[in-house]
């Protein structure tokens, strides 16, 4: 299968800190691919490089085998077919749920200024269709009925789902999810796992996921890359990653005993989180 996204030797520095260090990654079409690693490993920064929010100092990023992404503006990249959600939810708080989704559709709507002012037939039809689709997306993420609620008034989990609906509204080929299950309980996580699978299976969207919960990652991923201090320290299928000594060390450091336990727990499918995976996140994450 061809790679939807291929990053080669991407490096991003903040002053003296190399947040992403020579990252290379190839994501085949139609997979669910996870990037994991301790907090501050550079995962979010890597996402920001992919979406054009940061310009990496070195490296190339290629999308769909045709488009170079590095150097392009964020909005252009979105229009090529990459959408994302944020680690700390970033909805438009004072717009309604429906309006949030409609904003996501922006680049697929074409009504001109005149069309809008004089409400031409084409503009009206386009707006009605957009509204229809927004309602469908709302329904798809299980929020029908909440369309007219301001985003900031939605429950936390609903906000997460609305953010995904908004990303879907851009009609992406590749969806980047930055810790979509942060702060969820196991039952909610199970629902989210099923939901993410459905995105891939029903819509054919390739998913790139940042996640901390080992169990989730192991269940859902077709492939995994592990980051630590900005570098990729391991890559492979879930089973291989679980046993990789470098990964265990990165996650658990000196606590070798705990490491063994965690691996055993993950193997047995018990609901145990890795001991250090849920440290509070740094405030400067986008």
């Amino acid at each position: 299968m061809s790679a939807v996204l291929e990053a080669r030797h991407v490096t991003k520095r903040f002053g003296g800190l190399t947040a992403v260090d020579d990252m290379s990654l190839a994501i085949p079409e139609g997979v669910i691919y996870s990037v994991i690693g301790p907090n501050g490993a550079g995962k979010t920064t890597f996402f920001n490089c992919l979406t054009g929010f940061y310009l990496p100092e070195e490296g190339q990023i290629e999308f769909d085998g045709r488009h170079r992404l590095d150097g392009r503006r964020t909005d252009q990249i979105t229009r090529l077919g990459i959408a994302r959600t944020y680690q700390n939810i970033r909805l438009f708080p004072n717009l309604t749920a429906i309006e949030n989704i409609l904003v996501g559709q922006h680049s697929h709507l074409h009504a001109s200024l005149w069309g809008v002012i004089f409400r031409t037939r084409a503009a009206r039809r386009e707006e009605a269709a957009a509204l229809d689709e927004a309602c469908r997306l709302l329904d798809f993420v299980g929020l029908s009925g909440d369309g007219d609620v301001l985003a900031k008034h939605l429950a936390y989990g609903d906000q997460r789902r609305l953010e995904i609906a908004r990303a879907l509204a851009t009609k992406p080929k590749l969806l980047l999810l930055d810790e979509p299950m942060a702060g969820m309980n196991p039952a909610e996580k199970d629902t989210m796992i099923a939901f993410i699978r459905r995105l891939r299976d029903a819509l054919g969207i390739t998913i790139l996921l940042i996640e901390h919960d080992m169990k989730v990652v192991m269940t859902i991923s077709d492939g995994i890359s592990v980051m630590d201090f900005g570098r990729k320290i391991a890559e492979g299928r879930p089973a291989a990653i679980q046993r990789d000594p470098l990964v265990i060390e990165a996650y658990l450091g000196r606590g070798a005993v705990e490491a063994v336990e965690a691996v055993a727990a993950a193997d047995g499918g018990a609901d145990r989180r890795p001991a250090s995976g849920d440290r509070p996140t740094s405030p400067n994450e986008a």
Partner: protein
Amino acid sequence: MAVLTPYGRRGLIVGGVIVFLGLVGLLEAFSTRSIINVLRTAGGKPVAVTLLSLPELLALIVAFVAVRGLLPARPRALDAFGAVGCGAAASAVTAAFVRLGPALGAGGDGFELRDVFIHATPELFEVLGSFAWHLPLAALAAVAVAFVRPDVRRAVTAGAIAVALVGVLSDHVTILLDHNGVPRASTAWFLRGKSLTVAGAATLFGGVAALRWLGERFRPVADRRLAARPARDRRWLRRGGIALAGVALIALPRFAGSYHSEVLNQVGLFVLMGLGLNIVVGFAGMLDLGYVAFFALGAYTMGVLTSPESFLAAATVPGGQPVGPVGFWLALPVCIVVAVIAGTLLGVPVLSLRGDYLAIVTLGFGEIIRVLALSEWLKPFLGGSLGLKRIPPIKVPWLAIGDGCAARGIDVPLCVYRLAIDGPDKPQKLFYILLAGCVVAAFVALRLKDSRHGRAWMALREDEDVAQAMGIDLVRTKLMAFAIGAAFSGLSGAIFAPKLVSIFPHSFNLLISINILALIIVGGMGSIPGVIVGALALVGLPELLREFAEYRLWAYGIVLVVMMLYRPEGMIPSTATLRELRPDDDASPGDAASPSPAGPGTAVAAAGAEARA
């Protein structure tokens, strides 16, 4: 007793504030404004005696707000006691000032209170003395209000505001009644002199409070009934409402008379600018402090193009033909285009700036335009500090019929009976031009608000980075907001120039920008009705209270602080558009039912159905 300390302290502060208001001259300036008066017989003759004056009302409001801020949601006996104590303390401070103030400086020791505060006149002491001991009443009212049901509270507030407004503006009410030929005898029970009577105040209060209460009570019922009707009926109802409002607005200058039409025109100019700035600041969230620049550009372009004294009038084209001044209607689109170009040009350098930086740079831009107009360099073209003169009145060519009718003695509405908007009823006729401008601007703003463009602006306001990540082109979106905002302002300026006949650089100072921004904030950011209400409150009201002029900025400051504290969303907050549960009425059924182009959305629907199955 510790509970009482804050009340006492606040009482002293309130007293101090009231004395301060007096010392800066505000109370004295307003002392002739009586809100309610009564008849007393003095020496066998009935005389009107003020029962409630505007200074007293202001002092009572200060005391009321101060006490209300301290009271808990459910005041107990001790709180009530404290509140009254607070009022009493404030009264004591005021009364002490009234007693001791005149003595200050009378001792001949070289110190004169009036050297520092020129407003510390005997009149001030008289005014303060007249209500010094009334402040506990405000405190009692504050306690009482805490026990009243919220709906009743809102009704009472509405009634009180109505009485205060009509009472304060009763001289204008009298003028308007006279202008419309209402005999004074028939309103004597309501208005006496420049004040409401007790009966008038009571009726007004009761009427407005009752209406407000009934309105709040039955609004949901009416809404539900309305929602049950077919969309077509609702559409007709709305059209009927619009038509009614249109008729009322067209009739307005006829009833307002020349002076009040002039006030309305002033409001109209600011509504136009407010609608434009609302797009930039309210919709797109870009703080623009140099907005007056586009107003100036519109006005100067109009002046240069239409004044027979402008350099253009004297210039000749290469063939030797004089250029000559052009008419208003030809110049109008040029003014708007010039403003749009300037808006876009300003937009380019500030594209990457946000918040404070944007504000400072735009502020500079506004000043640059004014300084340019004032400069020696452009003096041959713009007249420097002497400005541009003899800008001709607006002519409405297609209304020549009106002239004909008037010549034959046929009565036609004001707007159509003379070619040029000039003469004694100029304000009334100019009103229609401004009305047309405002209607167009409001219409455009409304349509844009609920479109992909409006949503892009609001996304920008909410979170610029995420907006970009939604595929929104920031450059285009920002420039579009600047350009459209500038267009409205340019239009306003283009009407302003012939209205004033002469324009000068100092008419376009920073204060205008601040004025417009303030009216948007007070009206409600991003709200179109808010712009109109804000302009009425911050432009119209000061125009009616002429003695107020000196304190205008002062009051802006207070109004803005109070708004930010108690009602940051503005007087008429912009509401979220309901779409899911109440789709746009205007989308005809055929449109809604038309199949949307197949795409991921359709797949989404299928997937959703699958997931539910």
